[in-house]
């Protein structure tokens, strides 16, 4: 099967501003879009992922652009964007680039805060949904389960994950340095990013009193607020809301500042100078750096938090490089597997494997029979060959059987599994 059949189409925080991502708004139930994409002509397998920072469709489709185009149209239906804009905001990875992308997403190398662990769970949920809806076939099974093991490998072999966890841990530690006991304190989440959720979860675990979620679209805010048992407000209420909260975690995708020093100064008087801990984890920044100069206001951006946990910048770069190397390595491995998914290579491989066995066993037998004449030896080799050919005859027919592409791929996988063609050094092939 040509690798070009795997395609990944989507928008994320790198390619589209939050305003665009929000217009896609597939919050909550993903089964409807999943089912719709599965029904597109030429789509063999699909998986649909929607998080705060990304919406992507992973397709195994006919290598004509039609299916991808239809999928793109579906994603942006109702967004009111022109076709040119749509193309500008989306990315499309095909073949190994798509494989690499999926691995990077799973390993959280593509996240707003590199290394944050939630994306893996979200990807797993998307995969589970695809399995439940019979949308995932052999290729996606392999690709996604491989992506989970790649993520795991990167997590254990590099310190990329610990950095994100320790950043939100650092935020909690700082909050404790400022407020002491966190119970009864209120936290306001502005924007709903993966990292903000992680930090909010840590704070909740520390007994924070209440979570308020402010978002441009109230619907999304409400979804998140429900998760934290909190309250939802619009982003335009941010400044008045500050009068009643103690911690603000800001992660909107706004292009400019959403909160300025001059707006907070009068609020501090209203707060009777109760301290305010501002955490800015958005890139570009949401909060005016000058805010830190106000009395009783403590502003930390993502780099400050990193500095607190003393994760050295050079070391971080090194870890990221290591992770990218792992991704590249695993992508090559996957491409290799994918190439073998074609009939020709599988048949050749099967024959090669059978031949190897025959040769090894014949040699072993002959070594124990030194009296056997040349003729006897020839007869023994012929017998081995004939047995193998007979034995492989039906599996070969089975492989060449006509059927839908999906059936054929399933058969191929089955044969590969029965004959252990994907096992290298006992390194399981199930992924």
């Amino acid at each position, binding site marked *: 099967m040509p690798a070009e059949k795997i395609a990944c189409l989507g928008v994320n925080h790198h390619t589209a501003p939050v305003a665009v991502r929000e217009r896609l708004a597939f919050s909550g139930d993903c089964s409807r879009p999943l089912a719709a994409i599965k029904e597109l002509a030429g789509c063999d397998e699909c998986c649909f992922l929607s998080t705060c920072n990304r919406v992507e469709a992973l397709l195994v489709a006919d290598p004509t652009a039609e299916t991808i185009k239809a999928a793109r149209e579906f994603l942006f239906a109702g967004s009111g964007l022109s076709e040119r804009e749509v193309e500008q905001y989306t990315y499309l990875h095909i073949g190994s680039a798509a494989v690499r992308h999926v691995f990077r997403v799973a390993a959280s190398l593509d996240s707003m805060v590199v290394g944050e662990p939630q994306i893996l769970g979200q990807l797993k949920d998307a995969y589970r949904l695809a399995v439940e809806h019979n949308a995932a076939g052999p290729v996606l099974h392999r690709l996604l389960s491989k992506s989970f093991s790649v993520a795991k490998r990167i997590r254990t072999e590099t310190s990329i994950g610990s950095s994100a966890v320790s950043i939100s841990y650092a935020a909690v530690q700082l909050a404790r*340095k400022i407020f002491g006991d966190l119970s009864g304190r209120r936290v306001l989440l502005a924007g709903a990013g993966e990292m903000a959720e992680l930090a909010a979860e840590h704070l909740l675990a520390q007994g924070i009193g209440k979570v308020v979620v402010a978002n441009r679209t109230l619907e999304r805010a409400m979804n998140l607020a429900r998760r934290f048992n909190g309250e939802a407000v619009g982003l335009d209420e941010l400044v008045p809301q500050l009068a009643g909260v103690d911690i603000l975690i800001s992660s909107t995708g706004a292009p400019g500042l959403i909160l300025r020093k001059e707006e907070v100064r009068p609020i501090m008087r209203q707060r009777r100078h109760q*301290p305010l801990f501002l955490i800015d984890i958005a890139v570009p920044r949401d909060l005016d750096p000058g805010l830190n100069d106000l*009395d009783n206001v*403590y502003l930390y951006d993502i780099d400050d938090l990193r500095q607190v946990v003393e994760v050295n910048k050079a070391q971080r770069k090194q870890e990221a490089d290591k992770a990218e190397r792992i991704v590249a390595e695993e992508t090559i491995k996957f491409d290799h597997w994918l190439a073998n998914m074609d009939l020709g290579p599988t048949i050749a491989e099967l024959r090669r494997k059978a031949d190897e066995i025959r040769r090894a066993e014949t040699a072993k037998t002959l070594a124990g029979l030194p009296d056997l004449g040349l003729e006897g030896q020839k007869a023994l080799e012929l017998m081995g060959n004939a047995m193998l050919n007979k034995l492989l005859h039906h599996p070969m027919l089975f492989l060449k059987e006509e059927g839908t592409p999906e059936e054929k791929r399933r058969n191929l996988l089955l044969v590969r599994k029965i004959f252990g063609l994907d096992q290298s050094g006992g390194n399981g092939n199930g992924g």
Partner: protein
Amino acid sequence: MDILFQLVFAAYLAATATALVFFWTLNQRLRTVSRGLLLVAGLLHTGYLVARAVVSGHTPIASSHEAVSFFAWALTWAFLIFRWRYRVKNFGAFVTPMITILMIVALFSPRQVVDLPPALQSWWLPAHASIALMANAMLALAFCGGIMFLLQEREIKRKRLGFFAERLPSLEALDNLNQHCLSIGFPLLTMGIITGSVWARQAWGAYWQWDPKETWSLITWLIYAAILHQRFTVGWRRRRAAIMAIVGFGAVLFTLWGVNFFLGGVHSYAG
């Protein structure tokens, strides 16, 4: 009696040293040792004050040595009682050096027992002087809390959490400390001034005669009154409250010593 004083001094010194080493190394055993030593020092100090009272026949707050020594004693017990009611992480590392400094001042002041002039022989002496010095002790605790607050806040603001961030309590706890100390210290200070005034009426016939010490007590009182007023009305807290606690304590120290050195007046024969 000199030996007893030296013993007290040595105990304070040892408590301070272990508290500082604990602050540096965070070895939990040293903290217990330091606390024990301070308790021993406090008890010995009490014995010393009693012995002095017996020898002189009056409350030992008459000379400069006695006043400073009493101040240190009050600070020790204020701290110990405070810790028993309300725990502040590593507070001891800041309070014990202060006690030791006071004791050094006491060490170098003339230690002979003085006879009280007849004008001062009154029950108002122990009442006025001990209340005023206990107020000073509480205000000294607020001062230590203020220093700790500023150190901690500086590291948080500069985003370099290092030596102090690890060792000091949260800003909230330090601000509460400030409030607790002031809400005990300020009423004591008020009572100290009132008892002094009543005693002045008895001894010299006038409640208030704008003697430099009286004036400075009033200034000190006004500073603390302003701090508390601002805290409860507009919410002067935290950084500002910490700075004001330090400034206020500067006024306390000036009232206690500066006035005697620079200005003289009716209190000049006493601490």
